[in-house]
């Protein structure tokens, strides 16, 4: 038994869509698409971005090391995805708000979150989310995709107050399967707010590869469901990424409505330190992806373009390593919060009924 050969005739097309893709550099750093953006030959633009990527990687190494030696909790490495944070954050204004996932340290650091704060957070201390610089940025969201709603809300506040600010939300490929991602996108468009959603499509959500996550050919097209302008970009190509994010954020800022960008990248490390990726993906796949390393790619481009020397580079590396080491030291030297600090920020004013509990905590008992 099989399907009849139906002959029903469509009367016409009522909508058409396409997803476009941008890449400037191939994985050797060669230019494959011209003209390049105007800033692509400016070292004052590119070197800070490159440095942010290096710093992110040095931080990552330090954090992994702390974790392995029992001095940090479960930790999620951004290895291989460093271009995204640099591109996104450098396309934002200071007064914009970042609503990050748990893997966008580069973006957070660019905006002023310190490595010590990041370590405190992953080291189990709430003070790590009390960012001293980007005071309005969100703490990382562990519940996947739930923070997309926050970005829509923040962007709504900007619109209501006629502020030229943008809420930028970073999420993963796995996050695009969640309903709150879709609801946020749909409402952002319906309300026409300045929110930009950046998907770091690193091909894996823990052990779930993209093709088990969705049958959509691209993640960019998820935006079509909400009527949101979208595009796909090579997420390991800093030049392409920055061109795309800069435009999207700018457009959102100046009233063009929300945007969605799918950045194609690859998670080179385990999902977190609690994960063992060798259980579900081949070493060959990972090895192949190493040649796409965004840092190596930008490095080749910068060296070729004469924007960076090997000497600059080694200095940069050393500086970033020193910074990471200093943060580690500061982190390890930070005394823990007192137990009763559990009550300090629970409410603006601790309700009377909780005072007893707080006081009992000192005496090691809790019975209302």
């Amino acid at each position, binding site marked *: 038994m099989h399907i009849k050969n139906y002959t029903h005739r469509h009367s016409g097309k009522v909508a058409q869509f396409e997803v476009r893709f941008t890449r400037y550099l191939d994985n050797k750093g060669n230019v494959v698409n011209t003209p390049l953006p105007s800033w692509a030959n400016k070292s004052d633009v590119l070197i800070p971005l490159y440095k942010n990527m290096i710093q992110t990687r040095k931080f990552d190494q330090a954090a992994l090391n702390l974790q392995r030696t029992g001095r940090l909790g479960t930790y999620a490495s951004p290895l291989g995805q460093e271009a995204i944070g640099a591109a996104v954050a450098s396309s934002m204004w200071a007064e914009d708000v970042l609503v990050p996932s748990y893997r966008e340290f580069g973006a957070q650091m660019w905006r002023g979150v310190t490595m010590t704060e990041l370590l405190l957070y992953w080291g189990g201390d709430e003070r790590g989310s009390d960012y001293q610089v980007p005071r*309005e940025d969100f703490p990382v969201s562990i519940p996947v995709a739930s*923070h997309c709603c926050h970005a829509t809300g923040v962007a709504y506040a900007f619109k209501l107050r006629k502020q030229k600010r943008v809420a930028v939300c970073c999420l993963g490929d796995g996050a695009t399967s969640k309903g*709150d991602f879709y609801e946020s996108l749909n409402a952002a468009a319906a309300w026409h707010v300045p929110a930009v959603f950046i998907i770091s499509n690193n091909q894996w959500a823990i052990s779930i590869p993209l093709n088990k996550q969705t049958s959509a050919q691209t993640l960019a097209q998820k935006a079509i469901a909400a009527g949101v302008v979208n595009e796909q970009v090579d997420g390991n190509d800093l030049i392409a990424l920055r061109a795309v994010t800069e435009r999207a954020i700018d457009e959102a800022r100046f009233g063009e409505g929300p945007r969605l960008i799918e950045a194609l990248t690859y998670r080179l490390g385990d999902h977190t330190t609690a994960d063992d990726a060798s259980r579900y993906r081949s070493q060959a796949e990972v090895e192949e992806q190493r040649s796409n390393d965004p840092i190596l790619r930008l490095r080749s481009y910068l060296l070729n373009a004469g924007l960076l020397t090997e000497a600059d580079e080694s200095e940069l590396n050393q500086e970033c390593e020193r910074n990471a080491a200093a943060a580690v030291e500061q982190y390890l030297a930070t005394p823990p919060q007192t137990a009763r600090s559990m009550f300090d920020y629970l409410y603006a004013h601790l309700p009377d009924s909780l005072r007893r509990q707080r006081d009992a905590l000192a005496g090691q008992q809790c019975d209302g």
Partner: protein
Amino acid sequence: MAEITLVEAVNQALTWEMSHNENVLVLGEDVGVDGGVFRATVGLLEKFGDERVLDSPLSETLISGASVGMATQGLIPIAEIQFMGFAYSTIDQILNHAARMRNRTRGRLSCPMVLRAPFGGGIRAPEHHSESTEALFAHIPGLRVVIPSSPIRAYGLLLAAIRDPDPVVFLEPKRIYRLAKQEVPNNGDALPLDVCFVLRPGNDISVVTWGAMTHEVMAAAERLADQDVSVEVIDVATIKPLDMKTILESVEKTGRCVIVHEAALSGGWGAEVAAQVAEHGLLDLLAPVRRVTGYDTVMPLYRLEDEYMPSTDRIVNVINEVLEFA
């Protein structure tokens, strides 16, 4: 001064606060042109425009989550969930984000939002429209859960909820939306949160309740007064955090306690009240604390809803049993 209903008092509080604080906005399904399916937001669109009276897509998760985002920016979103039966998909946002934003950022960000929802049975509503699940929210640390029981308290408590710097779930007993009218001075005066209201002083027994059930309890108290039984009726109002001081003082005086709520018995908020009375008031108690509640069943469709909900008769009976306990 004209007398107004509870839902009108909600509207009056919203109007007052939106007039006096431009950071306040309302959002939800049908809150704009329609004025809300119960008309709680009627007239707001005309007064405050469609940016502060925001009809949202049909997405409760988003409504609550976007409110979190707005609140971190210093707006005070008042989100309406059309019926409590559709509020469960907000729990993720309320528990994982709203109620802990201040704590997790050590005070850097906070979440001054109000989530309003009508709840409870008794209006012959369709399936899923009549439940009372306040206990699900009241268990969440960092949250406040407030339930008014009269037009005056709806006005004063809603103003307080909006002004509170932390997230508040404000549950409106829809059965009494239009049951009784009161004069409600529109003076912007809030009532205190976190305290119970003694609706009727008495000496023989303390009856602790909230929301629509205050009406059955007051009726029971009236009826018992005819038998010379003096019932103290306590309206908890802010069920989370719980003002046990007022309740325990009352029980100290009366020695007997009955708790009344519409929600299912097991794990209903009455359990918390009963547990605390039994712990801290044990020596005062002349009889076991009893609860008169909905059954541990699914709220039935409307033909049987009256059988489900505590009636004045049931309350009177249990009070009598407690009084007779020796």
